């Protein structure tokens, strides 16, 4: 029986986030929070492994209460167990502090053979959570996995194809192993009505900084985060180029080609 963990994140749909032109700050109101798209690929890989070898798939996330919705989405798409780590004390965590909390919670709920992550999140997009989680779990790391070839539970070895510079690398790793998943082969399944309904009422296990044993407060949230964001600023609009307005697509095209004639 394989014990599989998928680490997911609920993110704002950044394509819909707008900037207030007056203040330069983000307008978050009305922007839907979604399951990070690449995490759905990671979940699908985990569920396929479970179906092939038998085991359980747990999903874990750290976030506000609403993040439970992302977990329900995962339950509908084949996860068996969902864990939400939610506490104001976790706020403003960078990847170092987040990976610490997730690993501590995972330690509490049981050892995992395989851990899956999406390649990066839509919002932070540092792409470094997986590497730091692997460190926290003391796991081997296979990044950019295109296909999991085999899982040998007895020998504790997993074999996978990875996207690598200009080609595909086949590699093996000793379990526990953390894998980040490419979107190429693991297309998220569409939940059927029955599993979707079941996910609505399924239990979500919730933990706070008080209920995760042995949590060092200096390592969580803002105090545990060595990277800071002292300021953000809106982009300066570029000076802009020459606008072509000839009155029709055909005339615009002709004008443009005249303008760039010596470059073609």
């Amino acid at each position: 029986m394989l014990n599989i963990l998928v680490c997911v994140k609920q993110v704002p749909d950044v394509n819909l986030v707008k900037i207030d032109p007056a203040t330069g700050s983000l307008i978050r109101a009305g922007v839907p929070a979604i399951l990070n798209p690449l995490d759905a690929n990671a979940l699908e890989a985990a569920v396929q492994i479970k179906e092939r070898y038998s085991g359980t798939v747990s999903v874990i996330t750290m976030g506000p209460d609403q993040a439970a919705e992302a977990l329900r989405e995962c339950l509908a798409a084949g996860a068996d167990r969902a864990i939400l780590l939610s506490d104001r004390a976790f706020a403003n965590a960078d990847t170092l502090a987040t990976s610490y909390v997730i690993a501590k919670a995972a330690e509490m709920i049981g050892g995992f053979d395989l851990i899956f992550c999406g390649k990066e999140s839509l919002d932070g997009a540092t792409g470094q959570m997986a590497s730091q989680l692997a460190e926290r779990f003391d796991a081997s790391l296979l990044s950019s996995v295109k296909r999991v070839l085999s899982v040998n539970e007895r020998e504790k070895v997993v074999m996978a194809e990875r996207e690598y510079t200009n080609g595909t690398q086949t590699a093996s790793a000793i379990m526990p192993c953390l894998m980040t998943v490419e979107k190429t082969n693991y297309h998220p399944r569409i939940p059927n009505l029955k599993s979707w309904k079941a996910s609505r009422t399924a239990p979500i296990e919730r933990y706070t900084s008080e209920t995760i044993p042995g949590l060092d407060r200096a390592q969580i949230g803002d105090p545990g985060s060595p990277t800071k964001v002292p300021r953000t600023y809106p982009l300066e609009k570029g000076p802009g180029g020459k606008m072509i307005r000839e009155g029709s697509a055909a005339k615009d095209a002709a004008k443009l080609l005249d303008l760039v004639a010596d470059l073609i």
Partner: protein
Amino acid sequence: MKKSEYKDIWVYIEHDGKKAQSVSLELCCEARKLCDASGEMLVAVIVGKLSEEEREKVVSCGVDRLLCVCGTGFEPFSVDAYTELFTVLCRKYKPSAVLVGGTIDGRDFAPRFACRLPTGCTSDATQLVYDTKTGDIEFIEPAVGGKMMAVITVPVMRPQVGTIRPGTFKYQPIGARAFEIREEHFDFPPEKIRTKVIGFLPDELDETLNIADAEYIVCVGNGLKGADTLPRYRELAELLGGKLACTRPVFDRGVLPYKLVIGQSGVVVKPKIYLAFGVSGAVNHVTGILDSDVIVAVNKDPDAAIFGYCTYGIVGDMDEICDALIAELKARH
């Protein structure tokens, strides 16, 4: 932790024995400027044997010291060995910053040794600025899908670790200066390496996917109506003798492969003419096109940010303009 005890900026030189990765050389050139501002030494860290010629290339970026590491367990690359090596080296030498190319391997091990030390790690900065007041490096990068810029610092911990994407900075060697060589011996026990490379199958060389050196690029953005509208853009690219490319959201939609993505999380290009159709102009895309000779933007939204960066702009339906360009090019041939 006393920040003042940590000195010098390190650049990890990733190489395959024959050639140093271009991103490592780019980082050396950029780190040179930081060192000039901070008064620190620029240290290039070379693990394993690198040819004399390539070492000279590294030195020509204005390196003050080569830290050459020899020992077993570092070939082929493994996350386990390189994580431990950099943890040990950082504890011994106390660099103020370590910059690593944002390659597949670099992105695997740099955040991990930062976690083990522990210290802060940033990724994909597009500008590095030394703050003389705080002594910190400002890692400046597009955030929230390229809608704003964020300044990221590691104000308390050291070293400041950063991975930087290939092509972000320019390889402009300022020439060699007097430098010293320090050698370090470190063996990593092979039984502690938990991953093993079993095989490698090179991608079939598909020239249409090689956009980095294309002279003409037709790029489609999220304004693309659907995959069925792609052929006209491909045709326009072919008529120009160039390549088709896309922005990140088009890849996210599953329309075109990742190798065709231009921008901060993709390829940096420098064509003679770059034509953007339905590209909004998010800065993480724009950072990948700024070295183009001419930027042409076509968008139905007159307020699209891309018009701020273009040489020539046309407000209109992307498909119609593309068709008109195809017709006009054919008529002129």
